[in-house]
């Protein structure tokens, strides 16, 4: 059952069906959490905390169209809280990221499996990682990413650009490393 349908069935009850919401969003939320933490346990904990928060406060949300953004925002805040990194990252300009953008062939990515790709992403600086993860995992607009992360549009773009730059460098370094020297994980 789609979320909208679930809501339409009984809009007067003032809440959305919990099981439907879990069915629809637990996998993308887990993947987002994995991108942030890289650790399956931590990611599962974050997803669990997100849904618990939903169970507590989500029923206050009347608009089913906002559920997805609400869940992603809540998960991201939980992640920041856990890391004690609730600070405003300085807004950075995109201008200086282009001069040395490394070229990475698509084969670099094709050779990775999904968990290796997450491992690469999780090595990107934390301040860029959330934007980059949402950029790839969801079809969010930059504006929506900004709402989830609570940062302005320009910051979203600069974080994506810088994160992408780092990601490409990480991939290149990995391929330059001899097999015996690759990461244990």
């Amino acid at each position, binding site marked *: 059952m789609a979320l909208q349908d679930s809501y339409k069935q009984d809009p007067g009850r003032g809440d959305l069906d919990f099981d439907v919401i879990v*069915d629809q969003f637990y996998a993308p939320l887990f*993947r987002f959490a994995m991108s942030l933490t890289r650790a399956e*346990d931590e990611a*599962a904990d974050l997803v669990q905390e997100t*849904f618990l928060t939903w169970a507590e406060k989500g029923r206050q949300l009347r608009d089913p169209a906002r559920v997805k953004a609400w869940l992603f925002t809540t998960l991201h805040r939980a992640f920041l809280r856990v890391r004690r990194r609730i600070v405003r990252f300085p807004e950075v300009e995109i201008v200086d990221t282009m001069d040395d953008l490394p070229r990475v062939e*698509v084969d670099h990515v094709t050779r990775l499996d999904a968990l290796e*790709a997450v491992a690469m992403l999780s090595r990107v600086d934390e301040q860029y990682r959330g934007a980059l993860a949402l*950029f790839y*995992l969801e079809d969010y607009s930059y504006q929506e990413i900004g709402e989830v992360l609570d940062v302005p549009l320009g910051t979203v773009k600069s974080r994506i650009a810088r994160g992408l730059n780092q990601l490409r460098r990480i991939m290149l370094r990995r391929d330059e490393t001899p097999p015996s020297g690759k990461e244990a994980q």
Partner: protein
Amino acid sequence: MNREDAKRTLLCYRPGTADASDPEIAEAIAVCETDGELREWFADHCAFQAEMRKKLRSVPVPGNLKAHLKASVRIVPVPMWRRPHVWQAAAAALLIFGGVAGLLWKPATLDQFAKYQLRMVGSAVREYRMDVVTGDMAALRRHLAGGGAPADYEVPASLKSLQLTGGGVLRWRNHPVGMACFDRGDRQMLFLFVTRRSAFKDPPAEKPQVSRMADMLSVSWSAGDKCYTLAGPEDSQVLRKYL
């Protein structure tokens, strides 16, 4: 818009999304039509973006996660009707709303300790990882102390008869939590979680309270400056005998 401007703009472009409708990106794509080198760069970039997106979206999700999430919110942290504040709230509601109070009833929200409990038990249900494998409680205490977790905890007398298998340090909102794992001998494990009482605004009472969550039961209590949670896949009577 020159080539470098276009590259800068197109860096944030994702093929197959609505990004192309952004006027700035649309302008940069138009520049590609007249610049062969840029067009080649853009094609590579699109292939990279599409492949990366595909990989990240195929990250496997633990098979039991969905069921665990659905089960976890059906937790009954403590018998709600036994909580004094519930009675007070109900009395107030009755005074105000009279007979319609029942119609306005909403499930009470989970408190912070319940979240902690659920997180700890969830760790045990999904996959518990022991930092140290040891049958020596003194060695485990040293390890926990090294990780900042309480090490001077009291092990319930009946648990001492079980085989300690190891433990580790977990974290709850940056509070270190000590975990000790015991083998009951019938291929079932019991988990004792200990953390400081000051970590909670609503620590459990000194009298043990039973909660059911996911596929496990847990018993929680406070003693001194610590909070204890004992979790295991059993009924409450069996669990209580280890207290």
